[in-house]
């Protein structure tokens, strides 16, 4: 046997070991999700105290109980509330962040550099530094326990991460297109809507999906701003289970958890390319 053949054999074994390692790691990582799915289908007496993932019989009743909702509010209402907030946030972020990004990426104006630096700095700003006065402002306006505090800030480009993401993307677009348009008498508004915005679509989709998922998952802001059970989102409704330690509510709680995760899983499966590449490009210099 020649050395090259030996080497090739070793490489093949190395590759197999690598895949085996990755698959093993993946199994461990996916275990909590499998556990969630399995538990949501288990009858009450099997929920805890067993390592078996598979239930002895499938208890759909967990899901029918979950559909009834929490605190007398049906799950459809909770779903609708979650969708309304996430949808409003998506619209707000795509609108306001793309406008600001275009100015930073393409237009010349005084104070551009210091304002851009400030915008980047707000990415690192802890939310808590502005949280209490924001709460007081919305309280004074009588908007606590409404959806405005959750949606309105998104229309004002407060999530600088997305401005940055779109700026990075716009900087990669060829300038010649706009220059040609300008010579043809195209102003900055026309140029933005007809040329830059359509080309920025991938970054806008990334922004939209991330905004949806992050808003859907958000717990803290919803916790402080919403009180009425019929205004609760799915995430907040799950909070009602946080205090409950009785095992009888375990099955329905995890059924509701599955329902709450479903949109994220679907978004992930449908848009993983945008999500992975959006995350990847955020760490690289544009």
């Amino acid at each position, binding site marked *: 046997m020649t050395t090259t053949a030996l080497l090739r054999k070793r490489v093949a074994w190395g590759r197999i070991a690598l895949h085996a*390692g990755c698959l093993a790691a993946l199994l461990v990582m996916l275990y909590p999700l499998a556990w969630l799915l399995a538990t949501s289908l288990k009858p009450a007496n099997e929920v805890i*105290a067993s390592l078996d993932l598979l239930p002895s019989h499938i208890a759909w009743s967990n899901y029918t109980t979950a559909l009834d909702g929490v605190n007398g509010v049906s799950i459809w209402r909770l779903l609708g509330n979650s969708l309304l907030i996430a949808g409003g946030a998506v619209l707000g972020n795509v609108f*306001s962040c793309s406008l600001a990004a275009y100015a930073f990426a393409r237009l010349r*104006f005084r104070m551009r550099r210091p304002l851009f630096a400030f915008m980047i700095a707000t990415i690192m700003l*802890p939310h808590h530094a502005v949280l209490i006065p924001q709460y*007081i402002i919305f309280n004074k306006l009588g908007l606590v326990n409404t959806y405005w505090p959750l949606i309105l800030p998104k229309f004002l480009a407060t999530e600088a991460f997305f401005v940055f993401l779109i700026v990075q993307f716009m900087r990669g677009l060829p300038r010649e297109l706009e220059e040609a348009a300008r010579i043809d008498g195209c*102003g900055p508004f026309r140029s933005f809507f007809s040329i830059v915005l359509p080309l920025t679509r991938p970054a806008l989709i990334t922004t939209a999906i991330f905004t949806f998922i992050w808003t859907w998952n958000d717990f803290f802001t919803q916790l402080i701003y919403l009180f009425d059970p019929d205004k609760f989102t799915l995430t907040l409704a799950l*909070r009602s289970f946080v205090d409950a330690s009785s095992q009888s509510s375990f099955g329905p709680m995890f059924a509701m958890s599955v329902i709450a995760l479903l949109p994220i899983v679907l978004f992930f499966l449908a848009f993983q390319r945008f999500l992975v590449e959006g*995350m990847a*490009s955020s760490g690289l210099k544009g």
Partner: protein
Amino acid sequence: MTTTDVPAPTAHRSAASAQRRPTRERQGAAWVFLSPWVLGATVLTLLPMAVSLYLSFTDYDLFDPPHWVGLRNYVQMFTEDPRYWRSVLTTLTYVVIAVPLQLGLALVVALALKGMKRGKGFYRSAFYAPSLLGASMSVALVWRAVFNDGGTVDHLLGTGGWVNQPGWALLAVALLTVWQFGAPMVIFLAGLQQIPAELYEAAAVDGAGKWRQFVSVTVPMLSPVLFFNLVLQTIQAFQVFTPAFAISAGKGGPADSTLVYTLYLYDRGFVASHMGYASAMAWVLLLVIGAVTAVLFRTSRSWVFYASEGER
């Protein structure tokens, strides 16, 4: 032949003003595009920062007007409130456990996937998925059950429920963060793929082995991305909330072992209605995160390598 009728100086002047006018127009346009951001940055960022600084020197319960107390809140925090220091210690412990573990795992997996020909895209997506799901209350509740008495970890390790033991509960919170290593991993992987293959070839020609290539090519070339991940994950870790809330039913227990900083801030401000005190806590958090970021930037000069600088 209309152009010949126009006196030369006028043509010159109008050309100049034609040049100036679009720029002024463009300035105006820029501010129109920026207006939502300017409004948000002023009313929802700068103004609240100033107000929260002011409130940190007051007693304020949302109903009666703020009452100036000077440094009282800060003095109380630093000298009379053991739970405050508990929350500081808890958060620092959490950051020191979670961030290095998460980034280390992210780097190892990214290196493993780098050279893979088949399956790379699949693994990349699959490892990334928990980063999106893990922030949810659903998964935090799963975590509590899995690490609880009679949960999977108890069954496997026989240690009893981690979430009920002061010595272990914080580790359960940290592991939920580590589980979400996919986001920094994706960034590492993108960084690794930007390293030119010639560098490795040149190093190999010079007789560098795998380890030497890693130390002399991969690490310096990846250092800006490593730095980016380190700063971002550290800042995020300081603000951890949802898993600690879920695992301890909002109380920070057992024995305050999961009372992270933001959970205590929430407790002081929104449960106990001490908005002044919570504002003081928020400002200390802001200063600490600012200081940690500044230190990271300062030390980065000695280990972060930018290719463009190296050419000088």
